[in-house]
């Protein structure tokens, strides 16, 4: 097997606040292969966005990485000096954010923002040509005319395409897309997601897609890490995850999505996610879990293999077989 595109091992992120330290990411590990479509799935507070930002060393202070490693092309990004990380950002690893209106610079034109990421070794004409090519690649009609537009002159879908163009400008080996379509209408969402996955396959890029939408995961993604309270609760290939979910949170999440079959009752998960400041020992999902016992609340729950390339952070997995799946 060729070298993985990214190896995250035991990553920890903390955010000191007045109320106390928020343990946002608590020992997250996963591997992404070249060309793979990988998803980080979770709800607010799961740590998925913090994980992404930590990978690219884009945490806003006072948030900081307090442990673990992020290996890209064999080198650990965590201890790397800022200038070196800068060379990798946009080039080896690129990121597309959720809200293009705040991620794009409002006072720069589309052309300026794309060419900003291109090396100075290209002549201005070449840079322009490349910018047009990129806009065409991301499906923006009339790309030459669009070069001079400012973000506020574009629709949400178009801005997201421009973000994609910026992200792809240096043909990165890995693209991080944090909820890239959440703010968009359903039909535009479908267009953008199809585009991202098509470009990914064309360019042989690995993709980490951060999303809360299980439908998107089911349709588009190869492998999934389900995150809860700063940890990976379950990790598996998509088909395997939906066919044989092996963590109570995953089961709960799948049961929360209104399905095709209207006669299947919704099974909402009771309660709310834990406070990441006062996080206790033991399984963070225990208070909401139908299978929880004292053992679950006692100590660290190990991440165990429960199937072919399928891992779960739960000590009750053998009791879950036969629970409702996707």
């Amino acid at each position, binding site marked *: 097997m060729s070298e993985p595109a990214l190896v995250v091992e035991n990553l920890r992120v903390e955010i000191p606040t007045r109320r106390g330290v928020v343990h946002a990411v608590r020992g997250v590990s996963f591997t992404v292969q070249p060309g793979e479509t990988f998803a980080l799935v979770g*709800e*607010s507070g799961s740590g998925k966005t913090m994980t992404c930002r930590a990978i690219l060393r884009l945490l806003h202070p006072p948030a900081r990485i307090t442990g673990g490693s992020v290996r890209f092309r064999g080198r650990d990004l965590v201890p790397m000096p800022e200038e070196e990380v800068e060379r990798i950002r946009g080039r080896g690893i690129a990121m597309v954010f959720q809200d293009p209106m705040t991620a794009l610079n409002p006072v720069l034109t589309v052309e300026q923002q794309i060419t900003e990421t291109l090396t100075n070794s290209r002549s201005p004409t070449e840079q322009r040509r490349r910018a047009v090519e990129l806009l065409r690649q991301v499906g923006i009609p009339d790309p030459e005319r669009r070069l001079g537009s400012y973000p506020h002159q574009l*629709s949400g*879908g*178009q801005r997201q395409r421009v973000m994609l163009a910026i992200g792809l400008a240096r043909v990165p080996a890995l693209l991080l897309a944090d909820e890239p379509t959440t703010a968009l*209408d*359903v*039909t*535009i*969402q*479908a*267009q953008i*997601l199809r585009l991202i996955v098509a470009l990914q396959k064309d360019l042989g890029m690995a993709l980490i897609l951060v999303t*809360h*939408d*299980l*439908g*998107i995961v*089911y*349709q*588009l993604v190869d492998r999934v890490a389900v995150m809860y309270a700063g940890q990976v609760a379950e990790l598996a290939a998509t088909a395997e995850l*939906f066919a044989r979910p092996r963590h109570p949170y995953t089961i*709960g*999440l*799948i*049961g*929360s*999505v*209104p*399905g*095709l079959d*209207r006669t299947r009752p*919704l*099974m*909402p*998960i*009771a309660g*709310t996610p834990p406070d990441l400041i006062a996080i206790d020992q033991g399984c963070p999902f225990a208070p909401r879990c139908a299978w929880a016992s004292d053992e679950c609340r006692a100590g660290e729950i190990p991440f165990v293999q429960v199937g072919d390339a399928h891992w779960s952070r739960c000590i009750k997995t053998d009791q879950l077989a036969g629970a409702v799946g*996707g």
Partner: protein
Amino acid sequence: MGQRSAAESLLEVRDLVKHFPLPYGLVDAVLRRRPESVRAVDGVSFNLARGKTLGLVGESGCGKSTLGRCILRLYDADHGEVRLDGVDLMHLDEQQLLPYRKRMQVVFQDPYSSLNPRQSVGNTLLEVLDVHRLGTQADRRRRVAHLLTQVGLRPSDAHKHPGEFSGGQRQRIGIARALAVEPDLLIADEPLSALDVSIQAQILQLLLDLRASLGLTMIFISHDLRVVRYLSDEVAVMYLGKIVEQAPTAELFARPQHPYTLALLSAVPEVGSARRETIEIEGEPPSAVHVPVGCRFHPRCPWRVERCLHESPELKELLPGHAVACHVAEAKLSLLPVADRSG
């Protein structure tokens, strides 16, 4: 669709129009520009039977929220009728309207901005009861406690302020507020969109339970087809200010006719679905200021023919109980033997 008798329909909406004029100043006048408006709702009609839930579905800018607000008279429509139990609400003044306002209530999308942060939750609920002068002070306090329990919170939560609750809990309070006056009609405008998936499921379940126990008639406005399908008896699909297709839920999802509906359904990523007939539409929705001539969907429509460029299709019942506004769909269906057209 005209089948229902007036007695069965709780709500009748006829030819409702709401345009928002764009600013027009001296320079525009001098340059002889035509005054323009956002044609948010551009002629909408439907009936809603007592006890039923209508899902109003469409993407941003389709007019579904504006339609909801016009029905509630939070906006004043430009023309058309809104009849609650046969009474046209459009021309009532505030005094006359008050008793009807009690019968229609709304739950908004954003649980963070729809509750007064400076007021305790209990007082927010009391306020509603005070305005409509329901019962004695003691009755009202009891009702507040009861409401909080009904939505899965505790009576002791009445003393807290909105900031002390999570998004999901605030949405429960919003629902409690809407139900305080025991309305006949509840309009829920994207009540789940701001919530996490597992909380959405909780609130959805709550709405289902309350609807059953209170016999509510509901309009559920959402862009999320998956949720709409789960909750609604009938679904109306809106595009650029008009209803383009309307049918009982199972029928709409089994036999969608309008190309926009097909595109919406294709676009929804589902867990466990086999590939259904997909239709890809390109481009972006045009603005509601410059509504295309002819069928307003024609610039994006993969089926369009010459007629679509000039003639706006009417919303017509093309299958039993199933209305569609599309020339091509109509032509297709008219070619089928009559027997194949029924459900």
